[in-house]
């Protein structure tokens, strides 16, 4: 990673962190301020009320997030200035060209998002199909795909995936349903 890329990444990361903290605190603050019961509890008697600590915490988070965002913006301005002075292409220009690194990142996020989505629908599928078929239906495609990425042999990955997904599901069934009596 060159110094220039490092600077731009750090600036973007700072801004993203700032947005994350500010966004979280704004959602929290809107929840507290929209609750009349919470706002009425402030300054009522000796108990400072259930709204005091959330307001203080969220307020501090908003300030912290804003400072981090400002730092990111400052770094970004410095980076733009530096790249103009050194006659290097600006970040927007380098971004336009798809690099190997960015395609790797997208693939990484896609994998994570797809797994998260499949896990989110798993409880509904369990209710619809039952535990064993639903868990096999979820685990099998993942094991086949990840196995294929590893070995580049589809038949081996499929056979291995079938075997492992059945074993995994059976183990989970034995532990949670038979042994621990979890009503799944």
């Amino acid at each position, binding site marked *: 990673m060159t110094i220039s890329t490092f600077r731009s990444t750090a600036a973007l*990361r700072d801004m*993203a*962190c700032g947005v*994350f*903290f500010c966004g*979280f605190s704004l959602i*929290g603050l809107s*929840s*507290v301020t929209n*609750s009349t*019961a*919470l706002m009425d*509890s402030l300054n009522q008697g*000796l*108990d*400072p*009320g*259930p*709204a*005091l*600590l*959330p307001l203080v*915490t*969220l307020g*501090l*988070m908003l300030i*912290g*997030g804003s*400072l*981090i965002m400002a730092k990111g913006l400052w770094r970004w301005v410095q980076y733009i200035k530096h790249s103009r002075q050194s006659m290097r292409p600006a970040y927007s220009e380098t971004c336009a060209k798809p690099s190997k690194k960015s395609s*790797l990142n997208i*693939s*990484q996020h896609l*994998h*994570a998002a797809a*797994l*998260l989505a499949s*896990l*989110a629908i*798993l*409880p509904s599928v369990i209710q619809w199909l039952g535990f064993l078929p639903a868990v096999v239906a*979820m*685990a099998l495609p*993942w*094991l086949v795909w*990840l*196995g294929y*990425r*590893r070995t580049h042999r589809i038949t081996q990955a499929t056979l291995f995936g079938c075997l*492992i997904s059945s074993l*995994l*599901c059976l183990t*989970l069934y034995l*532990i*949670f349903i038979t042994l*621990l*009596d*979890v*009503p*799944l």
Partner: protein
Amino acid sequence: MLIESFITTLISTLLSPWGLSLAALGALLGIILGALPGVSSTMALAILLPLSFSMDAHLAILFLLCVFVASVYGGSISAILINIPGTPGAIVTQLDGHPMAKAGKAREALTYALIASTVGGAFGLGLLVITAPLLANVAMSFRSPEFAAVAVFGLVLLAYASPGTTVRGLLVGAIGLICGMVGFDTLTDVPRFTFDTSALQGGIELVPLCVGLFGLGEVLKHLHASNQTAPAISMAATQRTRLKVRTLIKSWKSMLRGSLIGAFVGAIPAAGSAIAVAIAYAQEVRFSKHPEQFGQGAIEGVVAPEAANSSSIGGTLIPMMTLGVPGDAITAVLMGSLLIHGLRPGPMLFSENPEFVSSIYAGFLIALLLTLIIGILLMRWLPLILRIPSHILLIGIALLCVVGAYAIRNSMADVYIMLFFGALGYLLHLLSLPSAPLAFGLILGPLLEENLRRSLILGRGSWDIFLHSPIAMGLFALSAFAIALPLLAPLWVRLKSDIQRFKTPF
């Protein structure tokens, strides 16, 4: 009385086939999971936590302690055999352990690591047994202002030691604090942050958060890289070889030094095993007559960090058991198990549940012994364990997270909360933010709020009550210093260099 109770618990566990087999299973799973690169001790404990809910509290803590202790040793296996530390605490072991393995001494290195781990663990247990009741006695005199200050200090220290900047760690901790406030307020019954959904009215439990953050979050992080294969180790690498007992005995000083450093560093909230092993290794290099041998397979370079790594376990349990402040992320997960069984760690645990305290001590000792026995028995099969393809493990863990989260209270809300924190863990990783302060915030949040409000009620609405407590003021001052230190340190360095420049003649 504590010793009597300890011996009774120890004997009853050793004589109970169910308890002993559960402990052995925990140790076996701990070694295997700890040995696999990408599965930290925290992750191992988080994904196995749901299995302990249906158990009796004593058995649950025994099982989890076995996983904890064994996974700490397990981390050194991959560090020695394939030069990839299984856990952060094994990061230094690889420096000399792997060169030993390359020189055909893999089994020797693993055995030294295992014995040092047992000795260090026993040392940490000794320190825990001696100091925890004393500290708990002191903490018994604490009132609400002191506990509020302890919560603030713990949160600051835990955020301070997290990777990244202190401010960001603190802000992540603040998110944890807010998560701890979700649901009905305990004093007034007013709902907070529920967004009119029934799923959030019950609040956010520590266990789905830990399973999501340290289990699923890690899976999402490593999923894409699961096509990379770890270097294969031949089965011959760990076959029986002649062990030099004399060499091991000679390194008793290194073991003792490592154990001492590990136990004391581990007892500092948030310092953790990674710092302890680094200090232990650096000290060994300093004390050694042949420092040039370090990095090339020096036995002291394996023994001292491993002893420090294991003895830090006892250290991290001290603040958790006496003050209710987790020593690190692993003890935060362990706290989740105690809370789910209705046991709140803190000074009251010693007065209200002394038999449970002694069962923790007994469980720790059994965990050490079982890790030693299973570690020796398993040694020749270790290359096979390291050949398990990571994608199988990751999908298995992801499924275990979902089923385990549901098993906590048989509630779908816990599954969705777990998934949310899994996604949040991944997002925090992308933003280079530490995730552990989130769990610390969730644990310390209720402690802080309850004691802060109680203090203000006691002080008739005045904040002066904190000024009247020297302990609370001391802890607040230390917290402020810890926050200001990263801001002041560069200024101090600049000032020093300016003075130096001023002194230098032109």
